[in-house]
């Protein structure tokens, strides 16, 4: 890493005129990047981090206006060069860019080969054959097997991870000096995320590029970035090396953000920290500190004056008034009531899934034949009264089909779901509704945009004809209070609410029928970290208060570690491992569970991105491998795994496993591992506790 500066941005602003006003997405950002260095820009949605990157390349939407004192890149001021020069000299040549959505970022109608080679031939200095050689070479480098034949393929024939690899190769075609990666792994599953990050890290070192990594995920930056810039409301609030910022956060926002991450402090902490309120409007001017309204330490001056930039060392600054009088205040309002002892005795099961299978018939393309897709394969599961059962798996593993089947919205081909002793399919819908209710992932699609909040929450009562109108209203208001919704939103529409508030509405709607079981389908994965913390806290509080049972579907192991009692791991429509949280997370028996644990990136600045041990992608459920469905990706697979599917086995500690090699999994892994297998997951991050929680 040299100390030579590659990129220097001074006072970069972006304004986007909207119908009513002007949105000032980026407000005077200063940034510096040295050659060979990785800068992580961290922020929640709407903080302006992507805009900053797009502004750099002038790829903003047509209406946006950019201004900057200077954007010095390798000696040229990009803020003054023409569009033509920028396109011809800089974009794709000196700066490569990778975007968040690999599924939509490649042109669907052109072959991979064409899209790769034209990145070079466009600039006109190499022949098509040269470009082709380079493309093959790069595809190999980014880990796509059989690169020459890939060139003929089209994007839709590749999986998301593969497409992101192609994107990376494309960005590297002209050996750029700087690679901008805008949330490169956000749309990918955890195991793939680790692969891609690892690849990026390796390529960067190998090619000596600089990189700007934009992400909302503190775990990702902690592993992949050398330095961090934290953005809030269009401006950078804190910068420093990764270790400095994460171990010793100075800005109250940075601290708050870290407190919100499950597992940041201690796995067992019952409540997470949270930041009240939401990001302020980005239209118009902001008076004082943009964070003041949400800051537990805000003093009078914070609301009046723009905060000063306080240097702490070389390239280590934070932007805060840091008022003396509130130094002692913490972000964690009402901090921990000490955790109630959890180890409840195993209670009777309230819901039983026995041998459920479900196959869909799908037509691919206009001319294709119908093919069958086995979404669920002989799934058995039980949920016990009062527990939180976490269902973990990557996208496409059949989680959603399973939850829909449990809810009675989908009829299984074989097997039964038994709820309170009766098959759920045989229950009258309304009776079923009063026993089991869902909370969905996307708060934007789970509320009918045409109905008022009061209406949405009260709808279950109306449908089930419970109580008179007035009584229904009272119950709705009470429920709103319980989930922390202000009474004034009663007549509002979902569009007028924030994501967190919407998710509270969804929870209120689920709970108003007093169900026994709530199925939470990734209830926080669409939310920002700070909001996620609020919702997780709320769910746990409600569980205690109302004695609920949760089936909690998630892909985020830190969330699992935070709240689950038991864990079930799903792969390709099967439960491959199921047992107590601690047992499963600390002594995983199935290689897939182990791989998931390896891929989860906790906040650990001192660690690098782990080397992924899983090869390949999550397979297409339509082409199920024979034998153990996991065998093509499994490091331990042998002939038996390839030919016969494993049976369910019960380990001595009461864990269910479906693996031929379960016995030797743990041992084999430790032999294979390069010495950083987390024996005691999750890793307690080494942070200065006195600083964060006095």
């Amino acid at each position, binding site marked *: 890493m040299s100390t030579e500066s590659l990129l220097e941005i001074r006072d970069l602003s972006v304004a986007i005129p909207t119908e009513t006003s002007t949105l000032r997405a980026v407000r005077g950002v200063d940034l510096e990047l040295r050659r060979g260095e990785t800068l992580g820009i961290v922020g929640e949605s709407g903080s302006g981090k992507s805009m900053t990157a797009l502004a750099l390349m002038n790829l903003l939407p047509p209406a946006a206006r950019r201004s900057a004192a200077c954007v010095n890149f390798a000696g040229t001021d990009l803020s003054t060069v023409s569009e033509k020069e920028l396109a011809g000299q800089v974009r794709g040549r000196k700066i490569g860019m990778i975007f968040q959505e690999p599924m939509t970022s490649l042109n669907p109608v052109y072959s991979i080969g064409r899209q790769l080679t034209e990145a070079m031939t466009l600039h006109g200095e190499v022949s098509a054959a040269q470009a082709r050689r380079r493309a093959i070479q790069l595809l190999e480098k980014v880990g796509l097997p059989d690169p020459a034949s890939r060139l003929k393929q089209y994007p839709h024939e590749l999986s998301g991870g593969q497409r992101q690899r192609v994107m990376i190769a494309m960005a590297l075609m002209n050996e750029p000096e700087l690679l901008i990666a805008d949330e490169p792994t956000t749309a990918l599953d955890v195991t793939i995320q680790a692969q891609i990050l690892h690849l990026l890290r390796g390529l960067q070192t190998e090619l000596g590029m600089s990189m700007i990594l934009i992400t909302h995920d503190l775990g990702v930056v902690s592993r992949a970035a050398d330095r961090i810039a934290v953005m809030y409301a269009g401006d950078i609030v804190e910068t420093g090396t990764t270790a400095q910022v994460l171990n010793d956060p100075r800005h109250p926002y940075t601290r708050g953000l870290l407190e919100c991450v499950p597992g940041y402090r201690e796995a067992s902490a019952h409540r997470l920290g949270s930041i009240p309120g939401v990001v302020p409007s980005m239209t118009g001017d902001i008076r004082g500190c943009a964070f003041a309204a949400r800051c537990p330490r805000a003093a009078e001056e914070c609301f009046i004056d723009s905060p000063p930039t306080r240097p702490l060392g070389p390239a280590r600054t934070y932007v805060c008034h840091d008022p003396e009088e509130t130094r002692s205040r913490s972000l964690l309002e009402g901090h921990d009531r000490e955790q109630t002892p959890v180890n409840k005795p195993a209670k009777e099961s309230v819901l039983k899934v026995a041998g459920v299978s479900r196959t869909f018939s799908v037509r691919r393309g206009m001319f294709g034949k119908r093919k069958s897709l086995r979404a669920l394969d002989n799934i058995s599961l039980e949920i016990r009264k009062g527990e939180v059962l976490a269902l973990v798996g990557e996208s496409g593993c059949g989680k959603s089909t399973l939850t829909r089947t449990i809810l009675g919205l989908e009829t299984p081909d074989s097997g039964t779901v038994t709820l309170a002793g009766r098959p759920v399919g045989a229950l009258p819908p309304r009776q079923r509704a009063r026993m089991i209710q869902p909370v969905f992932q996307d708060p934007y699609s789970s509320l009918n945009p045409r109905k008022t909040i009061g209406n949405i929450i009260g709808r279950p009562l109306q449908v089930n004809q419970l109580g008179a109108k007035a009584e229904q209203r009272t119950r709705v208001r009470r429920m709103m209070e319980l989930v922390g919704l202000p009474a004034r939103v009663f007549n509002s529409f979902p569009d*007028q609410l924030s994501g967190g508030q919407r998710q509270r509405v969804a929870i209120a709607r689920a709970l108003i029928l007093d169900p026994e079981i709530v199925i939470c389908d990734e209830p926080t994965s669409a939310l920002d970290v700070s909001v996620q913390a609020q919702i997780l806290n709320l769910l746990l509080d409600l569980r205690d208060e109302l004695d609920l049972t949760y089936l909690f579907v998630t892909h*985020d192991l830190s969330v699992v570690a935070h709240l689950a009692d038991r864990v079930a791991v799903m792969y390709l429509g099967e439960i491959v491992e199921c047992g107590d949280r601690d047992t499963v997370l600390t002594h995983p028996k199935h290689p897939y569970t182990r791989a998931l644990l390896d891929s989860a990136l906790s906040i650990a600045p001192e660690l690098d991105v782990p080397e992924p041990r899983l090869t390949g992608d999550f397979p297409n459920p339509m082409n199920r491998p024979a034998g153990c469905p996991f065998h093509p990706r499994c490091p331990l697979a042998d002939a038996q795994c390839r030919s016969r599917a494993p049976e369910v086995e019960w380990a001595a500690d009461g864990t269910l496993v479906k693996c031929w090699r379960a016995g030797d999994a743990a041992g084999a892994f430790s032999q294979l591992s390069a010495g950083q297998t987390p024996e005691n997951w999750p890793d307690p991050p080494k942070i200065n506790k006195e600083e964060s929680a006095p």
Partner: protein
Amino acid sequence: MTITESVGGNELTSEAEREQAQLGLTPGQVAIKRARRHPGLLVGFGILLVMALFAVLAPWLAPHDPYLQNLSLRLLPPAWVEGGQWSHLLGTDHLGRDYLSRIIYGARISMMIGIGAATIGAIIGVTLGVIAGYFGGWLDQAVNFLVTCQLAVPSLLLIMALVFVIGQSITVVIFVIGATHWVFYLVVTRSATLRIRELDFVAAASAMGCSRLQIAVKEILPNLLNQILVIFTLEVAVAILNEATLSFLGLGVPSPTPSWGLMIAEGKTAMFFQPWLVILPGIALFVLVIAINLLGDGVRDVTVTNRRS
């Protein structure tokens, strides 16, 4: 994880703006606010309002009875042309009926047929669209079959054949035009329904015990209303033009109803000599239809959730 950070603009603002303004505007208020700044919509609405007034108040505004014939005053030119009379501002037709009065009454006919036919089309199309989109399976196939039947036969020919066989009357014209103009509704509502039915609030409704009918009517339909309204407006225009075309071809509303298309058809034989008989109703038709289209485009612009800037 699917945290998306849009670069489009609106989504970015939305979150912040909402909280800032502490629950700003409801969707309806937003639409009205946008409408006030939409010139096309305002102009269209204005013209339409005036024409609707003429249609409603025709008995008071028309100087003569549109059906009253006076054979001795046939084919008078407009008043300002040599030979015209000021008592018949726009002249008279082949039976000596006052042309201005017939044009004013014509607005009634056009609007009645436009709205009537578009309503019938909407009822058929939306019902089929929601059924096909929500229930899918063989019902979807059946609806698809109907659509192919409808599209494969030239619609004007079909309408003409039907009117021809059933007989001409305003009601028949309304029903036949309506019954042949539902594909647009169907296609849009079907695809919207397909999209909406996958949304979580539909799953939530079914989890709370709603029947399929309840879901279709109470959850899905309200979300289609904006689109239906836009299509409705545009289909009113289409129906009006269709009626005019039909009447022009002699298979629309029966004589002596003052329909603009019929008036053009009647004037056509003499169009080289009494061109006003053709030009005037044509202009009325053009203005009415353009106003409706402006309104429809405007409504679409102001109700669309993510307007392209």
